[in-house]
């Protein structure tokens, strides 16, 4: 499968584990290999899972990243799920992971990930994106360059525009 990582399309062999209704977090068998498990599974099976060297975890939009506070460095990837692209909680989850919790590893957007939201997603700290598979991934790349300048600070740009450039006051505009 292909994903976008640091604005480049790359092959990716991580598998995202999603529980169906019959499966429970505490007794689901986590297959071997590169797998991104739900936060619930990580919390329920922590004892065994922490032995693994190639583990990822994903948060749903209503989960708090603080739950991973002491474990952040254990994961090769942390993903945030967008159940619908219009559910914007994931943006604050990502921002909190990066800014408040200091997570520096790969942060991946999964779920209903579409071109027109990528610009915002990259700003709050996502550096990997698994666009919805029914869309052209090459097309999605265009979403990163919608704007060449931004007003406000976020994770990608630590200072607001007014601290980075000399802006014009009335006398300079006339």
């Amino acid at each position, binding site marked *: 499968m292909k994903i976008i990582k640091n604005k480049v399309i790359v092959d990716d062999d991580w598998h995202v584990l999603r529980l169906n209704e019959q499966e429970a977090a505490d007794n689901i068998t986590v297959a071997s290999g590169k797998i991104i498990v739900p936060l619930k599974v990580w919390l329920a099976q922590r004892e065994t899972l922490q032995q693994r060297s190639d583990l990822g975890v994903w948060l749903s939009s209503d989960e708090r990243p603080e739950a991973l506070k002491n474990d952040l460095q254990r994961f090769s990837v942390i993903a945030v799920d967008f159940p619908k*692209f*219009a*559910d*914007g*909680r994931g*943006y*604050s*989850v990502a*921002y909190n992971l990066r*800014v*408040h919790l200091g997570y520096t590893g790969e942060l991946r957007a999964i779920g209903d990930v*579409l071109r*027109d*939201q990528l*610009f*915002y*997603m990259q*700003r*709050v700290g996502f550096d990997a994106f698994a666009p919805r598979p029914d869309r052209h991934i090459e*097309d999605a790349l265009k979403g990163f360059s*919608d*704007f*060449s*300048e*931004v*007003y*406000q*600070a*976020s994770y990608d740009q*630590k*200072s*607001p*525009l*007014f*601290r980075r*450039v000399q*802006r*014009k*006051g*009335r*006398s*300079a*505009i006339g």
Partner: protein
Amino acid sequence: MYRYDEYDQQIVDERVIQYRDQVRRRLAGELTEDEFLPLRLQNGLYMQVHGYMLRIAVPYGLISSKQMRMFAHIARKYDRGYGHFTTRQNIQFNWLRLEDTPAILADLASVEMHAIQTSGNCIRNITSDEYAGVAQDEVVDPRPYAEILRQWSTFHPEFAFLPRKFKIAISGGKEDRAAITAHDIGLSVTKNAQGEIGFRVLVGGGLGRTPIIGSEICDFVPWQHIVTYVESILRIYNQYGRRDNKYKARIKILVKALGIDEFRRQVEEDWAASKDGPGTLTAEELNRVASFFTDPDYESLTDHNSDLNEFKADNRSFSNWMQRNVKPHRIPGYAIVVLSLKKLGVAPGDATAEQMDKIADLAERYSFGELRITHKQNLVLADVKQADLINLWKEASASALATPNIGLLTDMISCPGAEFCTLANARSIPLAELIAERFDNLDFQHDIGDIELNISGCMNACGQNHIGNIGITGVEKKNHDEWYQVSIGGAKGNNSSIGKIIGPSFTFNQVPEAIDRLLQVYLRERVEAERFIDTVRRIGHEPFKEHVYATSFGTDQEEAADKKSVVPAQYSVPFYSPRF
């Protein structure tokens, strides 16, 4: 007023390119309507009853004559020759084609305008005091802060998909003219005992289905920190505001659920991490933005103008206009003039392309080329020389812009209603029209004095029915399309309150009679110069309720046929003969 530098212009130009491509992809079927919907909404584009409606941002209600002429151009070229000024100080065009909207945005960008975030679940256009910078009671000019917050909120990456829309209002006068208590965040910029500037911050106010007056979350946030503080409020809301039910998704529901103290604790916990960080405002940036809002070249004048008084004495129309549409200015010899868009026979807030051109022309000749749009859907020339008032009045009258009814019964707020809006249960504009017709007599209106009559076609309350002294709301009922609830006792401003429904609802044609009966109680009970709202507060709802329902109403058809003039005889002088 604020002017774009190359950064502002670039961001708006790039938005036009982005949006044009989104429309292209939608028309090519690459985007589904579901995917396109929030994208177009964040560009102010709604699909309404007749077609597409575009809402254009007028940041804090302030525009130049050049921008007003662009509205006239858009009205002529893309619409049906008119536009509609809204209660949130914006303008909307109701009859557009999707295919034309990228070109309209390009036209707007050429005069430093856009439609960014005028709809959708994001931070909306920030509203402010329509008399900012010129009001006599102003403590601090709110406009530089409104502009700084506009820039901060524009394409904020974290807050483009909030649980629901988010409205911020900011006021800087002793009297609140921006209805800050009825907003998701209400900001009052003020000075503390040391003379330092900061903000009283209210949160969780709003109208809609659950009208609530905002709660104070902080009594003084120093100006340097206002952006990071507001950002923390948004971050808590974005994460924890309800998303399972559209009608419980506004921040007011979250604040109510958590309680203001717990909500404050969470905000301050988040804020601790960003306070004093790079988002902190600098004096240099504040001064840069404030440089756009310095005084125009006022002449040194005095307030006395004997010509004016003479003309006033001879001309009742002018005298009425002076009394209602002209407001005191902080600079001697100047006045604030409100151009009324509430003329009988015209939907509240509507202006034709010809009127827009004329208004631009008046602004250039009489008010330094600037205009404001008010939350009551009128327009303001903020810096008129008192010596020019007679000529301005004559010109405004000739263009039907001088109806002397500002703050009176017919200066109604009305949402577009069921003829335009897919949410509405009932028509609003024709009801406003029916009421205006019934109470057309200006002497009667002047006698009633200050009163706010607000009409919404549904409980979403775009017409601000809850804070009308008389509020009218279209409600759903079986067997009949249009029923209206009537409430009294609502008010905006420093002493704001939510109105209470007086009783069973009315048919379309019964509403004017119900209002008439409310006014009869007021005229009977008022003491001295008491306003309608003061009488309601003093005597309570009961006497009003009792009188309104004491005698039965005619059926809808009977009331429609029985358009009797209820204006007392003493007002029926020929000069103001009623039209029916």
